[in-house]
């Protein structure tokens, strides 16, 4: 009898038929995908080429390398750890590191403002800052 009560309540809580609710679920999924795609496009449209790769170790500034000059830098991180930062063709990436997870090494190359490679074990972060070519691209 309690089960009957429960069932009745469940039906009361959902005035829409199962079919209708599944249709609504699908509409919900499509709306979510649409919203996420729009958000992604807006973000891609707003991003700008960066000017320099700014390196910090444990939040403290460590170095800043311009992206238009190919370079290599050995970053001394936490507890003697190291990351080798490479700047090539306007992109920055970590070529080698002694951290256990190697997430920073696997990270794709970065070149846009705000993009970041983080090596949590070594406390190293490489962030692209400023707009490219010395000229402000955003007008």
């Amino acid at each position: 009898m309690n089960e009957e009560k429960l069932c009745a309540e469940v039906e009361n809580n959902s005035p829409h038929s199962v079919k209708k609710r599944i249709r609504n679920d699908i509409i919900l999924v499509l709306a979510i995908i649409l919203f996420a795609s729009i958000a992604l496009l807006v973000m891609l449209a707003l991003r700008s080429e960066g000017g320099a790769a700014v390196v910090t170790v444990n939040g403290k500034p460590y170095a800043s390398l311009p992206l238009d000059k190919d370079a290599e830098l050995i970053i001394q991180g936490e507890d003697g750890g190291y990351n080798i930062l490479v700047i090539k063709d306007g992109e920055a990436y970590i070529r080698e590191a002694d951290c256990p997870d190697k997430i920073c090494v696997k990270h794709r190359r970065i070149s846009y403002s705000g993009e970041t490679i983080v090596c949590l074990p070594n406390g190293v972060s490489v962030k692209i800052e400023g707009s490219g070519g010395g000229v402000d691209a955003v007008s």
Partner: protein
Amino acid sequence: MRYHEKRFNVRRLVLLGTFTAIALILSYIEFLLPPIWSAVPGIKLGLANVMVIYVLYSLSLKDAAMVSLVRVFLSAILFGTALTLAYSLAGAVLSLAAMAILKKLGLFSEVGVSIAGAVLHNLGQILVAVIVLRTAEIGYYMIILTLTGILSGVFVGLVGSLLTKYIKFDWSKQK
């Protein structure tokens, strides 16, 4: 409210504790699985949400919130850090709010409610990641996390609705 007729209900308390424990075990299983995107800790499928959906539909929002939040705090203490607590908490709160609202609307099935919960769970974590890592770049992963959220939401919602349908307790029964 039917479930609050009794002033103190040991049976209900024990069952809720058990569900919280099951949610915790599900979190631990997820903790052992490789993360979807390892650069941001805490972004997971949200298996524990199965229990939240079950309690939300079988009992009440209040009970579901209790199971969810206790689970978040315990898993952060047992196998997380303060940072993962911030991620999980933001995810759990947003997810609960979304599920509560959609359930109240009555327009969606358990699966739809669960999908919204999963997507908002990931969104909450991304928002914290944007604040913590001070980079908007993580936003680009939102589309991936939205898709994984939908997939896990379907799975979690199906399991949750089956549990709701077939596992029923007489919550107010007292010995």
